[in-house]
C-alpha cells in the first residue's frame, strides 16, 4: 500500500547517499599530503614498511580500482585492518560501539525530556516571563562548547557534589547507568538551546492553527483539544526537528567521550588519530555517517506514520 511504497521509495534514495559516503571516506586518504604511506608511518618509516603499506592500501593501483576494491570490502562488512591493534576495524568498532549507542540514546532521551517541557511551557505562556526566560536559552547556549560544558558538569556534580563518576563506563548495568548520566546530560544540554527554539516555534504554529479553533468551537475541553488535536500535530513537527538535530548530537559524542574517558567509538577514533591509525579513523567516520543516515531514516518513517500527508509526496 501507500505506506509500503513510501518506505521502499525512501530506501531507494538511500543508495546514492550511502555510495557518496563511501566515496568521501575513501578519498580521505587522498587528502593526506605527500606519500600517504610515508606520512602514516611517521617515525616508523622504512622502505619495506612503505612498500608493504602501499601493497596493503592498494596505493600502486589506479584510483578507480582502489575504490572498487574498497567498496567490495565494505559490502562484506570489512572496514580494513588496524595498524596499532593488529585486528580488524569492524571488530574494534563492535567492541566499542556499546557505550556510544548508550550515550546517543540516553543523550537524545535527556534532550527530549529537558526541551519538550520547556518548549511546551514557553508556548503555553506565550509572551510571559517564562516564555521570555526560555527564549533566552538559545542566546546563551549557542556558543557553549560541549566539552567545556562536560568539564563544568564534572567539576560541579562529580568533583564537588560527588554525585556521579567523573569518567569511564563503570561495570555492570548499574555502573553503566551511573557513568552515562553526566556524559548524556552534556550532549543533551549542548543540543537543548537549538531544540527548544525549534520546538517552541513548531508548537506555536500548531496552537495557532485553525483546526485548534475548530476543536474549541466543538465545545471540547482544553485537555481533549490538546491531547486529541494538538499533541499529534506537534509531534509531527517535533520529530522532524529532533531528526535534524540528532546528527549534531551524534557529532558531539566524539569529544564528550574524550572528556569522560568513555571508551566508545569516538574515543577509539581520537586515540587512533594520536597513533595515526588511518583505517580506524576511516572506519569510524563511516560508521558515524551510517548512524546519522539510519536516524534520519527512522525519523522519516516515524513522520510518515504520524502524518498521512507524507505518504503521497
Amino acid at each position, binding site marked *: 500500500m501507500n505506506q509500503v511504497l513510501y518506505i521502499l521509495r525512501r530506501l531507494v534514495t538511500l543508495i546514492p547517499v550511502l555510495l557518496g559516503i563511501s566515496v568521501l571516506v575513501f578519498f580521505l586518504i587522498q587528502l593526506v599530503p605527500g606519500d600517504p604511506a610515508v606520512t602514516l608511518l611517521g617515525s616508523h618509516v622504512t622502505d619495506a614498511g612503505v612498500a608493504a603499506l602501499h601493497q596493503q592500501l592498494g596505493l600502486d593501483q589506479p584510483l578507480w580500482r582502489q575504490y572498487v576494491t574498497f567498496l567490495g570490502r565494505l559490502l562484506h562488512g570489512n572496514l580494513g585492518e588496524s595498524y596499532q591493534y593488529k585486528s580488524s576495524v569492524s571488530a574494534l568498532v563492535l567492541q566499542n560501539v556499546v557505550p556510544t549507542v548508550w550515550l546517543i540514546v540516553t543523550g537524545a532521551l535527556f534532550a527530549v525530556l529537558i526541551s519538550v517541557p520547556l518548549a511546551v511551557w514557553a508556548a503555553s505562556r*506565550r*509572551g510571559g516571563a517564562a516564555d521570555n526566560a526560555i527564549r533566552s536559552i538559545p542566546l546563551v547556549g549557542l556558543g557553549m562548547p560541549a566539552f567545556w560544558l562536560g568539564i563544568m558538569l564534572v567539576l560541579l556534580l562529580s568533583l564537588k557534589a560527588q554525585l556521579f563518576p567523573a569518567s569511564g563506563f563503570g561495570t555492570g548495568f548499574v555502573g553503566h547507568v551511573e557513568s552515562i548520566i553526566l556524559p548524556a546530560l552534556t550532549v543533551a544540554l549542548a543540543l537543548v538551546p537549538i531544540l527548544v527554539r525549534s520546538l517552541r516555534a513548531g508548537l506555536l504554529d500548531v496552537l*495557532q*492553527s*485553525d*483546526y485548534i*479553533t*475548530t*476543536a*474549541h*468551537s*466543538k*465545545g*471540547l475541553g482544553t485537555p*481533549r483539544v490538546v491531547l*486529541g*488535536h494538538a499533541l*499529534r*500535530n506537534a509531534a*509531527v513537527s517535533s520529530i522532524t526537528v529532533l531528526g535534524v538535530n540528532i546528527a549534531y548530537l551524534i557529532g558531539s559524542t566524539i569529544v564528550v567521550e574524550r572528556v569522560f574517558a568513555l571508551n566508545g567509538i569516538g574515543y577509539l577514533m581520537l586515540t587512533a588519530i594520536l597513533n595515526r591509525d588511518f583505517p580506524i579513523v576511516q572506519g569510524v567516520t563511516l560508521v558515524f555517517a551510517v548512524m546519522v543516515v539510519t536516524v534520519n531514516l527512522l525519523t522519516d518513517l516515524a513522520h510518515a506514520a*504520524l*502524518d*498521512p*500527508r507524507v505518504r*503521497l509526496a
Partner: protein
Amino acid sequence: MIGVRREPQRLAAPVGDGVNTLLEVHDLEVEIPLPHGRLRAVRGVSLQVGAGEAIGVVGESGSGKSLTLRALLGLLPHPARISGGSILLDGVDVTGLPTRRRQQVLTEAMSMVFQDSLTALNPVMRVGDQIAEVPRRRFGMSRSEAHSRAVDLMDRVGIPDPEKRFRAYPHELSGGMRQRICIAIALSAAPRLILADEPTTALDVTIQAQVLDLIDTLRRDEQLGLVLVSHDLAVVSQTCSRVYVMYAGRVVESGEVRELLTGPRHPYTFALLRSVPDPDAPVHRLLTIPGQPPDLTGLHRGCSFAPRCAFAQEQCTTEDDDPQLVPVAAGESGSGSHDSACIRWESAAGWDSDPQPVDVLERHP
C-alpha cells in the same frame, strides 16, 4: 463589563415573526492590545437572531465582522479580547459566567463553519473521526453509535459514499467536500445556531452555490438559526432575512434584506450595492469603493466613513463621535426596524439620481 445590562425579560421580547430571540448581542466591544495602545476592532455592535432566523453580516475585510463572530463563541485569536458589551442566550446574560461555564453554554447552543476548510480540519485525523468526536466525547455515545451518527451526518450534507469517505484524511478530499465535512462537524454538536464565517469564499463559483444551498436547506429543515458573515452582499441576500452592514467595527445599517437592497439608507451600503457587479450590465466591471477603511488605533472626528463618502458634508466631521444608529423606517411585517447610522439618511432618496458617486467610483477603479 461597562455595557448596559438590560433586564432579561425586556430582552426576551419577540423579534421577527413572533419567534423567540435566540441570541442577542449588545454593544459588543473587541480590542486588540498593541505595543503602543490598542486597536478597537469592534466598537459597540448589537445584533439579534431569532430561532430559525438567518441573518447576514456584511462588510469589507477589517470591518470587524469576523471578530464579532468569533467573539460570540469565545474563539478570539490571541491577543484580541472582549472589552465590553453583553451576549444573551435565550434572554439570559452569559457574559458574567466563569470562562469555562460560558464557553460550555455558548458551544452547546452554537457551532461554527470556517472560511478555509483545509486549515480548519485537523490534517492528521480522519474526517469521520472529526465528525464523530462531539457525539462520542460530549454526548457519550459508544464508538459504533458515534460512527453511524457521523455517517448519517455525512450523508445529510451530501457526501457520496459516506462509509468510505469516513476514513479519508482532509487532504484527500476536494475543497467542496471538505467544506461539507466542516458543516457536518458543525451539525454534529446539534446546535440551534450556526455561525458561518465566509463559508464559500475559498470555493469555486459553482461549488459556492451548492454549499450555500446546502446551508440554507439544512437551516430550513432543522429550524436552525444562522449568522452568515460575508463580504458579498449577493451571497447574504440569497440566504438571509435580515442584514447588518458593518464598517470600521460598527454596524452602520441594518434592516430587512429587501428593504436594504432596494432602499439603502447609508452611503456605505449604497456604495457596496454599486460595487456588486451587475450581470446584466453591458460592461462587466467590478467597482470598488475608493479609499481605505480608517486606522482604528488613530483619532478621527465624526463619521468614520466620511473620508470615503461621496455625500459627506461638513456636518459629518464636526461631531465628536460616529453617528448613532437611528430607526429610519418601521420594519415591514414587523421584522425589526430599518436602522441607519448616517445623519443624512433622509436625503438618501436622492442618492440614486446623484451622478457623483458613480463618477467617484469610476475614477478610482
